[in-house]
């Protein structure tokens, strides 16, 4: 078995883990991060992309609100390239209790969340699709952020500081000796090879899966996976984040995220973070909620539905509605809590507080190791954010304009050029087009890969010198992956698209009858959502 030696081992390649690995590496620790899959394939890549101002929590969960605005200000400094500064509104819609608005204003004041009342007419001028029945509107510093870009940026920053990031490495067991965690045995899920990683300290940052990992070290941690679903609409029905000014409920936020508008979300406790599905009722609930904020929402084109499981942690919870569980994070020191040394679990919290969670975690790790190394993550900008310029929606079109006569456009919906695609394929050798998708947004536009899946497969085959059999698998898996997301909200314009895509892949290309076995397997199995 291959052996690796490190100081800090971080388990989990979501936002929490990436925050921790960056923080640890920047404090000078030799650090390794492992994830059973690619980065950001769990909850992190499955949220609506809202950079919270904290407004959402000012009445219900002031501590969470304070954390949000604190981190919001820091992220704007260190991660501008990840953020689109859309601003946000809290709106009293016809179905909202008008009295909540005053509580909201009061809450903002108490938690230091900047908030300014705006004339409704001005809001409607800026966002003409909003419900004209809105009675009050408040502007807050919400924003839209790209979780994948954030994760890649953290990973690059960590690697630049010496960290190693091992994707597709799944923890098989924890090494526990003499009441202390000494590392973990992991398996490379692509080669099947096992690797023993010896570490001075292990950080469990596996989010909704934290209970499973903690158990391997003999610690009982109960994380409530709280399922939330989101629907991406084909274009930005609004260019500003809009929230209902009321207590948090289902489908009360629309986030303009890159080319789409995302409505979210629900909150339903599930038993297992890997075993749940999206129901018709949930989707209907989102569409009706959308109609309240943007009349005509149901006639607009839904692109895709997905769900994520929040890792909600509270020592004691018996409610079925996980929305009552605090959004604040929890740092569990297993020495004091369970008598297991050199092991902490960081869970709960929100994407926006990833940096703060990492800081607290590594402060605790330093304490346990008896060293003093200050946190530097709040001051040093992430790669590509050095110039502190916010991301601009038109950036990709502008890039394309500059290379109009130098490069091919492969994914036309999301403006993914061939050179960019090839560079990404070479940088992260993978035959999984879904991994490429998360880096480049390949196939994430209206046609959901209808045109680019074939092109990307051909390029992959050429570039990686893989067999056509492996290439076929990449193509079929990606078709299945795209289908998974469109299926729950398949109606209207998106059904037209799916039908055209079927004509292309089944009618013209006949991918259902590719040679040998690989055509049989994929797409026929019941794939877990």
């Amino acid at each position, binding site marked *: 078995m291959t052996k690796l030696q490190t100081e800090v081992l971080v388990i989990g390649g979501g936002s929490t883990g990436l925050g921790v690995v960056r923080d640890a590496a920047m404090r000078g620790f030799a650090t390794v991060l492992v994830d059973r899959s690619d980065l950001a394939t769990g909850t992190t890549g499955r949220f609506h992309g809202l950079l919270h101002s904290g407004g959402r929590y000012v009445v219900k969960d002031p501590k969470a609100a304070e954390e949000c605005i604190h981190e919001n200000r820091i992220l704007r400094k260190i991660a501008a390239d990840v953020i689109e500064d859309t601003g946000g509104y809290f709106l009293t819609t016809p179905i909202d209790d008008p009295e909540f608005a005053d509580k909201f204003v009061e809450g903002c004041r108490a938690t230091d969340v900047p908030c300014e009342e705006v004339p409704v007419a001005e809001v409607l001028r800026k966002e003409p699709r909003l419900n004209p029945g809105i009675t009050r509107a408040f502007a807050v510093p919400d924003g839209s952020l790209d979780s994948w870009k954030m994760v890649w940026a953290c990973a690059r920053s960590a690697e630049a500081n010496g960290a190693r990031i091992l994707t597709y490495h799944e923890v098989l067991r924890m090494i526990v000796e003499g009441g202390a965690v000494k590392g973990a045995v992991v398996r490379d899920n692509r080669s099947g090879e096992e690797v023993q990683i010896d570490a001075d300290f292990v950080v469990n940052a596996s989010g909704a899966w934290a209970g499973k990992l903690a158990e391997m070290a003999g610690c009982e941690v109960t994380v409530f996976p709280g399922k939330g679903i989101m629907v991406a609409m084909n274009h930005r029905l609004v260019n500003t984040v809009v929230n209902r000014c009321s207590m948090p409920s289902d489908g009360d936020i629309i986030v303009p995220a890159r080319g789409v508008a995302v409505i979210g979300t629900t909150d339903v406790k599930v038993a297992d973070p890997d075993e749940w599905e999206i129901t018709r009722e949930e989707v209907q609930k989102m569409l009706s909620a959308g109609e309240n904020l943007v009349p005509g929402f149901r006639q607009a084109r839904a692109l895709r539905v997905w769900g994520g499981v929040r890792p909600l942690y509270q020592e004691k919870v018996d409610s079925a509605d996980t929305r009552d569980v605090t959004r604040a994070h929890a740092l569990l020191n297993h020495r004091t809590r369970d008598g297991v040394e050199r092991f902490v679990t960081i869970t709960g919290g929100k994407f926006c507080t990833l940096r703060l969670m990492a800081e607290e975690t590594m402060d605790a790790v330093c304490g346990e190791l008896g060293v003093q190394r200050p946190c530097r993550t709040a001051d040093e900008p992430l790669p590509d954010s050095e110039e502190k310029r916010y991301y601009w929606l038109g950036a990709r079109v502008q890039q394309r304009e500059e290379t109009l006569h130098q490069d091919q456009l492969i994914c036309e919906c999301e403006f993914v050029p061939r050179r960019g695609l090839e560079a990404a394929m070479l940088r992260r050798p993978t035959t999984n087009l879904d991994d490429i998708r998360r880096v480049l947004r390949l196939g994430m536009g209206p046609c959901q890969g209808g045109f680019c899946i074939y092109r990307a497969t051909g390029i992959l085959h050429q570039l990686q010198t893989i067999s056509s059999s492996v290439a076929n698998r990449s193509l079929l898996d990606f078709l299945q992956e795209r289908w998974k997301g469109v299926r729950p909200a398949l*109606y209207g314009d998106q059904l037209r698209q799916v039908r055209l895509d079927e004509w292309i892949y089944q009618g013209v*290309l006949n991918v259902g009858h590719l040679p040998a076995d690989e055509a049989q397997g994929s797409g026929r199995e019941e794939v877990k959502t």
Partner: protein
Amino acid sequence: MSADVVVLGAGLSGLTAALRLAEGGLRTVLVAQGVGATHLAPPTIDVLGYDPELVESPAQALPAFAAAHADHPYARISAETVAAGIGWFRDKVPGLGYVGSLDENLLVPTAVGAAKPTAIVPEAMAAGDLRSGGRFVFVGLRAFKSFYPAYLAENLCRAKLSSGATVEARGIQLNDPGQEPDVTCMEYARQFERPEFRKAVTSELLPQLQAEEKVGFPSVLGLDDHRAVWQELQDVLQRPVFEVPSLPPSVPGIRLFRALRKALRSAGGRLVLGPVAVGAETSNGTVDALVVQASANRPTTYAAKWFVLATGGFATGAIDLDSFGEVRETVLGLPVAGVPDVEALRFSPGYFEDHPMARAGLAVDEHLRPVDADGNPAFGNVYAVGAVLGGAEPWREHSGNGLAIATGFAAASEILEGAS
């Protein structure tokens, strides 16, 4: 506006019906919101490719297929009508030089290197037939992003043919003239019409060819002068040359569209593109006029004795599934058959699994008139053809253009019979 027949929809089924009606002497107007699927898919006449196993002879398979699929459009028209329709169609577009027959499916390579069963193909695709194996070389063009010859060829080499023959195939990537990095199939088609370009391509390619190799190009070998382009390539390369279709748009499909449009014009048919059909004026179980939204702020009516719906299915919005899960036919509000209950499984989790909703569409009587749940025609003078018909999954069966032509021809024949 008034005519004898109004055909709604400019895809292959609508064009077929309109052409036959106009040639039959009826004043025919074809009205469509836009151009149809001829621009998207290759003009191979797929009659029946899978049931669900590979079909070797559509002519032999059709009667049993129709008997086993009572809701399928093929169960409404006879195999003879299918053959007659396709025969008639081939004669109307001599420029495409269709080859093949309903007796035996060809197997032509697709751009991923799968073998596709189809009955009749334009002449420039015929040499790609894989049934008896052989040696093939596929040619990629420098700036064409929708064709990957090495990938295609490698898959083809693994094709399992019932004849036991084997395919030897390889890919070549050309560095043909030009500076632009992203050249569309339309632009390549025009390039191929220039002698200098053809010369550059053939001189680069010729030294690389091996004995006995047939040469497959992406389907961009000229538009208006296609036949001359194709023949010259064969002459210069001294071996069979064929086209392989890929992603939309389809240059060969556009050739077919142009040929049909021209034939329709010569036959005196009128083509009105743009208006959106919004309803109809009806009386006593017949449609008197089609109502369309004109460019001006007023509805416009197209009165006629007969109407042919060639509006397409879910792909065009002719049949719409809304966000609440309701399904409707959008022009005349005709009953849609085969719609699974809203709580039932409509689309399966696996992409290649059976999706019950996929077969929803109009049910028709033996005259191709849409019927209600009791099997009675909704209107005495309305016919439905092509993809708006339910009971079929043409993209899986590989029956698309065959169904379009056969039903378009059959409905037009019904009308002509009634008129005489």
